[in-house]
């Protein structure tokens, strides 16, 4: 549906987006994740044809964006970071204008009413956008992107400035839209992406540093499974007891919690569940497990690791 190949954007000597390639299939929700200034918006602007790429191609539905901009643009609904609202118009007038601008061929009144219902702005349809709250403005921007039922939706940080209730609503909306549309949406908030997307692309310094399924992001970086244990007992006994458990690869004492208790991090093979063995083995050694929890990195950790890895690589790599 959307295919991005070797996309690069340079401003003078600065490379903002560096050789990005990925493709998104029909009905897929792709999360675009990265710290501020990583090149997310620039990439989206290139896909939508707002700015051109320095090199590389963007193909939407078989048409290249710079060769056949009209066709590509009419199949994309775009919500930029700052919603493009004419604040002096009423919501309805604005949507009517966008409807005409996009040359939508659907029955005008019904379609606009339907879109307004979908993003829940019917109650403010007669109000001037200037007087609306941030949350409503964001949703008007969202409505504008949905006009004409474009097969591809590109949403640049769609939930910024919304309250938690609205964020959940928008997330659910994105999820339900993902069944019929191809959705690419960006955010620097991880929980948001992991809650909504099938697939995550992590971008840092203009480069893709990870492209995985949402559920695999964490393990794809850390490799092995981890278990975090707080155990009361002498260190030697604990280590001996843990060592003999099949599947255990590495044991690390992280820190002492008090005189008798320490926290250990146990790395073990994927696909094995060692929790029961750990319990029995520690009990046999006459030690006590006070706390046992999944030691896998949270998505947040993985993300930070990815991004900082990339930055240190850049520093040590030097010439770019």
């Amino acid at each position, binding site marked *: 549906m959307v295919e991005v190949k070797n996309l690069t954007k340079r*401003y003078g000597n600065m490379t903002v987006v560096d050789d990005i390639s990925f493709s998104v299939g029909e009905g897929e929700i792709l999360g675009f994740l990265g710290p501020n200034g990583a090149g997310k918006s620039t990439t989206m*602007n290139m896909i*939508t*044809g*707002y*700015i*051109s790429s320095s090199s590389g191609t963007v193909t939407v539905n078989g048409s290249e964006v710079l060769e056949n*901009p*009209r*066709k590509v*643009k*009419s199949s*994309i609904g*775009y919500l*930029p970071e*700052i919603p*493009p*609202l*004419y*604040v*002096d*118009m009423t919501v309805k*007038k604005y949507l009517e*204008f*966008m409807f*005409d*601008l*996009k*040359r939508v061929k659907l029955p005008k009144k019904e379609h606009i009413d339907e879109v307004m219902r979908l993003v829940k702005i019917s109650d403010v349809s007669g109000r001037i956008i200037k007087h609306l709250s941030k949350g409503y403005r964001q949703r008007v921007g969202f409505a*504008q992107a949905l006009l004409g039922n474009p097969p591809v939706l590109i949403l640049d940080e769609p939930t910024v400035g919304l309250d938690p209730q609205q964020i959940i609503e928008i997330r659910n909306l994105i999820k339900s839209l993902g069944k019929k549309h191809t959705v690419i949406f960006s955010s620097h908030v991880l929980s948001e992406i992991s809650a909504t997307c099938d697939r995550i692309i992590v971008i840092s310094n203009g480069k893709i540093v990870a492209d995985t399924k949402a559920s695999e992001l964490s393990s794809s970086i850390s490799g092995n499974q981890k278990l975090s244990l707080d155990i009361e007992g002498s260190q030697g006994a604990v280590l001996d007891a843990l060592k003999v458990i099949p599947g255990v690869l590495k044991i690390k004492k992280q820190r002492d919690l008090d005189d008798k208790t320490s926290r250990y991090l146990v790395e073990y093979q994927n696909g094995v569940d060692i929790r029961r063995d750990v319990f029995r083995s520690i009990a046999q050694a006459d030690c006590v497990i006070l706390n046992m929890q999944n030691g896998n990195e949270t998505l947040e950790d993985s993300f930070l690791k990815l991004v900082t890895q990339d930055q240190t690589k850049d520093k040590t790599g030097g010439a770019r």
Partner: protein
Amino acid sequence: MKAILKRELSSYFNSAIAYVVMAMFFAFSGWFFVGTCFVSNSSSLSPTFSNIFVIIVFITPIISMKTFSEEKRQRTDQALLTSPSSLFDIVMGKFLGAFILYALCCMIFFVYGLVITIFTPADWAVIICTNIGLMLLGGALIAIDVFISALTESQLIAAIVGMAVGLLTYMLSSISSMINIDWVTSVLNSISFTAYYSNFTYGMLDLSGIVFFLSVIALFIFFTIRVFEKKRWS
């Protein structure tokens, strides 16, 4: 183009701009009309028409200052440029919106013509001819101002630069008379807005004037399109 034109007109008339501009134009043109026709007991509108150039220099930038600068400031240009409309349609829509408001202002001269007919038959050839000249002159200035507006995010800068450029076009003839270098003088004279325009105020439908003003309009619409193309490609 139709969608943009419609929005432009509604934004002019839903805000104070259209009314302020029209009131200002009517007031000053009325002043000139009274001053040259009533006070000196003349039925000729030609002096009124030649005086009005100065007012147009100030009015056209005010009409067109927000065309693109405001879009850029509010980031609504993103909606325009990612829509399936072509750049030509977008720029033309903006230009025509500003031009129609300006054209409405100029319609007042037909009213003055009617006022004259109360006392004596009016010279409709001059009135119609000058109105055509006014449209062309205003169109050229608006095209320039729209171009200036596309270069900046600030309405104020667009307006001030637009007025400066307008005044410059007004003064071209007097500047050229102060310069002694032949070729510079002839170049300045051949692009003198006042010279082309004054032919219309005498009731002459001057072909070279028509071609000149239309070329300026086409040139600056083309430049404006290039501004956005360049932005996309830089």
